[in-house]
């Protein structure tokens, strides 16, 4: 068997790439050139990684396509975004910019999506039913007030809080159903104050240690390391529970390391930088 160099190996890989069956069967092929390539791969991590990368791409492409040619052709027909979407998106952002809602770093609702969100509150209330058992301990806070006080005026508040609780329960369910991590949220003196849990995509902070702040202030959430601090959200309230439910996907370019801290501070509502002292914190890398 002849010795194969890099150039020849890459040429052979390029040839194999033309036919997925041959690429997949490389390990068992009796072809002398395939044998020479296998020999080269045993001593060349670069070519081995290159081949593996092509193999993975080939498998992904193969798995993405139906085995029927007509169906496969349909599946990869170009899909163009409707021209009206461009105007919608740009208009939404323009509205947000004009309304001063841009770059708040929180989970506030995009201006142009308010109407749709209103509809989702109705749907959320309907979806609450199956989760009543799970949410009961929190909903009792809402219910107790609802019974004794003005039902008409508090109904909307209760419904909004129930929707929020539904969202919390759903997020907790998602976190617990997936590989996840839970750390304790603490007061500055080290006393426990709540918990933070997160999975691959969801993030839930829950505490009963906070009371609602004045109207012009917010409890803001920060990720911090020695030389870096980024606001990732702010605490909302449902009854006596302060919470933040977020998506890791939205700020997942932050690499959580052993020194990463989650910090809650009380700030002016429009603050973009941290000035307050930590009220609650957690070691995410612990």
């Amino acid at each position, binding site marked *: 068997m002849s010795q194969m160099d890099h150039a020849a190996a890459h040429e052979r890989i390029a040839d194999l*790439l033309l036919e997925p069956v041959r690429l997949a069967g490389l390990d068992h092929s009796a072809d002398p050139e395939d044998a020479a390539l296998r020999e080269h791969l045993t001593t060349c991590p670069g070519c081995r990684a290159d081949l593996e990368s092509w193999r993975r*791409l080939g498998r992904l492409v*193969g798995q993405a396509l139906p085995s029927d040619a007509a169906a496969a052709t349909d599946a990869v027909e*170009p899909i163009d975004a*409707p021209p009206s979407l461009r105007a*919608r*998106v740009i208009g939404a952002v323009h509205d947000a910019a004009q309304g001063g809602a841009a770059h708040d770093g929180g989970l506030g609702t995009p201006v142009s999506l308010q109407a749709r969100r209103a509809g989702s509150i109705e749907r959320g209330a309907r979806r609450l039913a199956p989760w009543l058992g799970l949410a009961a301990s929190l909903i009792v806070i809402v219910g107790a007030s609802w019974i004794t006080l003005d039902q008409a005026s508090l109904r909307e508040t209760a419904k909004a809080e129930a929707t929020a609780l539904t969202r919390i329960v759903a997020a907790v369910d998602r976190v617990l159903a997936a590989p996840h991590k839970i750390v304790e949220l603490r007061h500055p003196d080290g006393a426990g104050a709540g918990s933070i849990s997160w999975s*691959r995509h969801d993030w839930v902070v829950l505490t009963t240690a906070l009371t609602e702040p004045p109207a012009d202030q917010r409890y803001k959430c920060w990720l911090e390391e020695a030389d870096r601090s980024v606001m990732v959200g702010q605490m909302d309230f449902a009854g006596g529970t302060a919470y933040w439910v977020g998506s890791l996907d939205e700020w997942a370019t932050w690499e959580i390391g052993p020194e990463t801290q989650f910090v809650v501070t009380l700030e002016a509502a429009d603050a973009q930088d941290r000035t307050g002292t930590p009220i609650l914190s957690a070691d995410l890398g612990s």
Partner: protein
Amino acid sequence: MNPDDRSSVDDPSTLDDARLAARIAAGDEGAFVIAYDRHSGFLFGSVTRFLGDREMAAEVVQDAFVTLWRRARLFDARSGSLLTWLLAIARHRAIDRLRAEGRRPTRDAVRLDAFTAEAPTAGTPRLDTPPELVADAATDPGEVAGRRWVQSVVRTGIAELPENERQVIVLGYSMDLSQAQIAERLEWPLGTVKSRTRRAMAQLRQRLGPIVDLDQPLDRAADRPAAGSAAQADR
């Protein structure tokens, strides 16, 4: 001004992801429009294939771009491209929409099958149910959704290819035809089939590599975490 920045100022469409995101974070609506024009097509194609509903996909894409506008300063180019970031946001939103609509892929293979076999809306390619997804549905709905998402992204990558390159990929990877068989079927010279296949695969690797992470083992690539923070949750 750094001389390197001059061309970008003269022609904002040449801005790389990091500079584009920085401008968006500073409130530059023009930069946002460039980002939209650059990435909306791939995003919309992927989400539409995943959801099977153009209107719902449009809402998800709008949500993703509004999130970009509001959170651009959190983008870190060292951890991935802007498209990868937008896709991660859209993926999360799309799965939420399925849950909200009660059409979420679940542990119940029948329900997954029902979801994927539903009639497509006008202008939307039919979405089939690959057997491996139905088989896996009994195990983990998150995994099923993850694989379906990757499938949608890969299909969108193929859809971006020129038509004659799409044809050789479909025949080679869907029907397992050899290059000679493809040449015979399409009545093209064998050398033309080979060069188009090579170009197509190189383009797919360049486009999809940063998104689906070809350096990960396949089972991980199907539900690749968006960043190390998520990966850490697995440990």
